[in-house]
């Protein structure tokens, strides 16, 4: 194939992050081309849940970034043409013992100090939240700004608008090689022709390291497998997203009081009502390479954990299960960064379980970086090379 196309900016990856970048950049007038090796939202962005959360973010920078993203998604709900099942009911964390209640109290205080809309919940509040909760749950906390979307519909919707702004989308187009030529342009070889570009954004999530390797850039992202259950609509179990407080401990790698296998598989309750009236139950966290096969043994523990918090859903039906790969980084923050060593190369990846939550702010910040504007949030903490501070030069 000798087809060569020259483009100003090429975004590699047609998941929710690449789509958000395409949307915000094309809206600002930039010439954007998206290359996606399979289909839009065919990787992690359709094998996840749809929570846009601040509730599980470290108080401070992390939760501020989530709050900014929530505000942007709220605006997107008015701006985008294709609806993406946006709901804005807030979310809840539940506690099963006194230690968690004390930790929750601290968490709420820290979040309130950082300016977020958090509040403690008592037993009575939980009873009002859902008739299905276990009686022994002590209480919990709520974050009132949290919202829910359908992640693949949001991806489709942002791409739809980006196309109206002139973005070009190439699906089934896999990048095979990437390098710079003598006139300092990127050359992007694909299975469907060669592209040249002035700037390239790597939005490949768990696959970002492979693109990095082509330019000799080490990107510290590892795939972390997560499994989810879809349960059929029967009776309404709850209207808001619910997680166990232990989810935070599982996310940040602390010690939990659970049986060894629940701990080993990183199983922690996540409940998400979907617009179709079904509900999703998660979650698990495992380092298991790029395998996305559903592991029955892990599903067993996810189901068990759900019944521990919602005993009365025991006879409700599981209709589907799936697994996705979350792009993990060592400090649980994404990489949103320019790579000075290869001018014009940007990375927007490594969001682990926060890709849906942080997609909007990620797209906005990349747009601001490319247009050399001040960024909506400080970006020093999101640099790609922060994991190698002690490495030899």
């Amino acid at each position, binding site marked *: 194939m000798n087809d060569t196309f020259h483009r100003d900016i090429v975004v590699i990856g047609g998941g929710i992050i690449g789509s958000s970048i395409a949307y915000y950049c094309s809206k600002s007038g930039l010439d954007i081309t998206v290359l996606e090796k*399979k289909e839009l939202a065919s990787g992690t962005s359709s094998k996840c849940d749809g929570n846009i959360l601040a509730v599980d973010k470290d108080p401070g920078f992390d939760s501020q970034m989530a709050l900014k993203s929530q505000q942007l998604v709220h605006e997107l709900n008015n701006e985008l043409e294709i609806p993406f099942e946006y709901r804005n009911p807030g979310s809840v964390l539940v506690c099963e013992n006194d230690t968690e209640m004390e930790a929750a109290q601290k968490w709420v205080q820290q979040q309130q100090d950082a300016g977020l809309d958090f509040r403690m919940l008592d037993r009575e509040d939980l009873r009002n939240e859902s008739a299905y909760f276990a009686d022994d749950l002590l209480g919990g906390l709520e974050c009132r700004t949290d919202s829910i979307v359908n992640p693949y519909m949001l991806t489709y919707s942002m791409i739809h608008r980006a196309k109206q702004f002139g973005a070009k989308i190439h699906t089934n187009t896999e990048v095979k090689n990437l390098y710079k030529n003598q006139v300092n342009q990127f050359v992007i070889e694909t299975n469907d022709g060669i592209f040249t570009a002035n700037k390239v954004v790597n939005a490949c999530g768990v696959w970002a390291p492979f693109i990095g390797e082509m330019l000799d850039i080490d990107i510290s992202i590892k795939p972390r497998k997560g499994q989810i259950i879809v349960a059929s609509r029967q009776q309404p179990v709850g209207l808001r997203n619910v997680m166990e407080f232990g989810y935070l401990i599982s996310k940040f790698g602390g010690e939990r009081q659970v049986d060894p296998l629940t701990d080993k598989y990183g199983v922690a309750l996540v409940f998400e009502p979907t617009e179709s009236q079904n509900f999703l139950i998660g979650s698990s966290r495992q380092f298991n390479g790029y395998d996305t096969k559903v592991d029955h043994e892990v*599903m067993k523990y996810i189901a068990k954990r759900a019944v521990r918090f919602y005993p009365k859903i*025991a006879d409700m*039906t599981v209709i589907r299960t799936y697994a996705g790969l979350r792009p993990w980084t060592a400090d649980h923050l994404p990489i949103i960064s320019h790579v000075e060593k290869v001018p014009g190369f940007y990375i927007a990846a490594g969001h682990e379980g926060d890709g849906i939550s942080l997609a909007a702010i990620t797209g906005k910040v990349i747009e601001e970086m490319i247009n050399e504007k001040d960024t909506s949030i400080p970006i020093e903490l999101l640099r790609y090379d922060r994991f190698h501070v002690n490495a030899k030069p």
Partner: protein
Amino acid sequence: MKEDEMIICRCEEVSYEELETAAAKYKCSARELKLRTRAGMGYCGGRSCRTMVDKIAAASANDQNRTCVSLKYQPPIRPISFENLGRGR
């Protein structure tokens, strides 16, 4: 009843017309057609409509869509209660 109104996915109540309209508009794979319309995402796991969703997508896909992604099978084979799944039966 007109032919267009015929229900293809009974679980999610998706009509032939809705599927045809979405397939013509997006010229997408069966997978994307499923996600956009919810056909095949209901209680029976696509047992009754899978082949029709596959066919409608394949018939509308143009030359650009050479890689046709048909619908997958995900566990469980049949709906199962949380209790039985948790017990590992």
